[in-house]
């Protein structure tokens, strides 16, 4: 088996989009050049299991060009058939097609494992978990894996705690170059702009309720405010809520805020965050969407069970009549809107994440004796990713002076230290 894609003839359009992305991914290009020059991944079998769009394709191609034997899979709902065709055209085995359902997705992931990857570059840890459950013989030959999402690192730590994890995994998600930028700036921009585009609704003068003020929620709030929305934040964590207040946002309960919302964007990653009562309290014409997110973050199944009826569907906008009688527009059935209905996070932000992924692969392959656990990417590698990106944005970084270094290294108080009188 050398791949399963929808239509090989789509490759040209996919290649064009990959070319555009690659031209704006300086970190990925720099690190893959180094991997190639050093021969770090030459002949190494690497499975890439990720959302399949132009930016991830750039990483898969970069690893292949650096000499790795790369195989790619992706869930159907996250697959762009043009990009899949472009990767197949470049000679990579690709198991992904947009019309694949849950069972075909699993078959595709298993097909990737049939290539016996020594390293898995994962998004959501589904393939890392699958190889442990279904292909222990493949796990035995693996050198490690990288995982780039919060929701993927969590079960991996659980696996480690229960003694089930058999390979070293680098939590690329936890690197600062990834976590401080991808969620806030990347998802913030892509979710807010996708909401406006999919709903065909300017945010100017609108009341936007942002549910959850973590990294994703704070980015969404910031971008919505930049586009002229009045933002209300809802939170369960008092510290995060206080941060929102100090950023200038009104902080209310969701039950209070729902009644005056034009748009509700959930950013908690927790099921049933926007529950039936919240949906029922929304004014007619309100829009509901999920950024980041998990299944049923908007409790749509429960809403239907409570009597909500879909009365219209226009593209990715489903209009529900709630038991209260109000009409609520749900964007893309409550799926992760920026991925499912737009092009995902901006290219340069993903470049940071993929730079971290490549640095993680390099760390796995060049560090002997890593045990079967979840590892952090070393600070120096994280810093290098940020420094390359900073240079591409036109910034320059200072260096620590000798006097500063001496101060930082000493624990003995200076005799004439200020402020001790």
């Amino acid at each position, binding site marked *: 088996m050398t791949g399963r894609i929808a239509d090989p003839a789509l490759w040209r359009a996919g290649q064009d989009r990959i070319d555009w992305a690659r031209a704006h991914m300086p970190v990925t290009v720099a690190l893959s050049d180094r991997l190639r020059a050093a021969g770090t991944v030459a002949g190494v079998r690497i499975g890439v299991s990720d959302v399949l769009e132009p930016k991830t394709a750039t990483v898969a191609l970069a690893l292949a060009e650096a000499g790795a034997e790369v195989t790619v899979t992706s869930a159907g709902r996250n697959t762009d058939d043009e990009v899949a065709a472009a990767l197949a055209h470049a000679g990579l085995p690709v198991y992904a097609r947009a019309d694949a359902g849950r069972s075909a997705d699993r078959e595709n992931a298993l097909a990737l494992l049939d290539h016996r990857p020594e390293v898995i570059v994962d998004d959501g840890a589904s393939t890392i978990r699958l190889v442990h459950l279904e292909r222990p013989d493949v796990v035995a030959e693996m050198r490690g894996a990288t995982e780039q999402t919060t929701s993927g690192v969590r079960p991996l730590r659980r696996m480690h705690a229960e003694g089930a994890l058999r390979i070293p995994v680098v939590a690329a998600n936890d690197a600062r170059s990834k976590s401080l930028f991808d969620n806030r700036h990347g998802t913030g921009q892509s979710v807010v702009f996708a909401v406006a585009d999919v709903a*065909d609704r*300017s945010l100017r003068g609108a009341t936007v309720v942002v549910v959850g003020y973590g990294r994703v929620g704070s980015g969404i709030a910031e971008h919505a405010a930049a586009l002229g929305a009045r933002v209300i934040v809802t939170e369960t964590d008092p510290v995060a809520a206080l941060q929102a207040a100090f950023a200038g946002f009104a902080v209310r309960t969701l039950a209070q805020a729902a009644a005056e919302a034009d748009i509700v964007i959930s950013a908690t990653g927790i099921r049933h965050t926007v529950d039936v009562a919240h949906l029922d309290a929304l004014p007619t014409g309100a829009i509901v969407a999920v950024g980041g997110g998990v299944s049923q973050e908007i409790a749509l199944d429960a809403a239907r069970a409570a009597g909500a009826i879909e009365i219209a569907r226009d593209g990715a906008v489903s209009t529900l009549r709630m038991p209260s009688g109000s009409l609520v527009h749900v964007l893309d059935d409550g799926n992760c809107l920026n991925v499912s209905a*737009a092009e995902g996070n*901006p*290219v340069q932000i993903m470049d940071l994440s993929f730079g971290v992924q490549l640095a993680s692969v390099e760390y796995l392959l060049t560090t002997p004796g890593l045990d079967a656990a979840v590892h952090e990417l070393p600070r120096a590698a994280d810093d290098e990713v940020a420094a390359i990106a900073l240079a591409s944005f036109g910034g320059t970084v200072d260096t620590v002076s000798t006097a500063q270094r001496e101060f930082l290294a000493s624990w003995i108080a200076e005799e004439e230290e200020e402020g001790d009188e």
Partner: protein
Amino acid sequence: MSSFRSFTPDRIDALLPVSLRLHREWRSALETLSYGGALPPLPLALRTSLRDVAGLDLAHTLDGVDPFASPAFGILYSRLRADQVLRAVSARTNLTLAGTTVTAVGDGPLADALSTSLRTLGAAVIRATDAPVTALAARLDGFRVQALGELSSRDFPVHLTLLTGEGHGILPIDTLEGLVADASPGGAATAEVRTSPSSRPFVGQAGAAFLVEMPSPLPEAEVPPSSTQWRLLDALIALLLLDRHDAGDDDRFAREVTP
């Protein structure tokens, strides 16, 4: 024309709520309204539909009312246009705005609105202007200010240049680098620029610059209109009706279009 199929008698009130309410208030029969200035003319098919369905004939003429003479229209237009431009740049390039350096060229409210939005979402904004009053305000608001003549001599990367068409001439686009978006009302700032295709739809290359096509502020031929284009058209008609029947009462216009 298929793009204006939505403009039917049962939908016009949703698409043009303010102007039709005013139109009915004065119970006029066919109103012929004309506007001048930088906004583009309506596509013929829409003009015909508007006349047949709503009883409004909207013409673009040299001596028509310039909507930008109304401060309230300028405010509404600049905010909605800034939103439209930033959304188009984001969707058509899939590139980040946070972290980038953006030059906003121009002296008017659109340059102000773009600068405010971009700064809020994390871009470093440079105001490019030769107008001393604009430069004073921009400097005191914490923006870096550049003269137009300095645009092509940079010692740092500029990722996006936004041409607002407000108070400046035609810039030599091919001396710029990075993305360029012509946010002027009718695309006049780059009308003469020749581009070659890039690997990305809606993006053409001119020298070291990539020109990102912008949607028109008003409905266009062959493209389904966005809600922002309908909203600006609604505001334009309302303004012209108020100009004819209510002596151009800008306060009333502002009240009518405030969401």
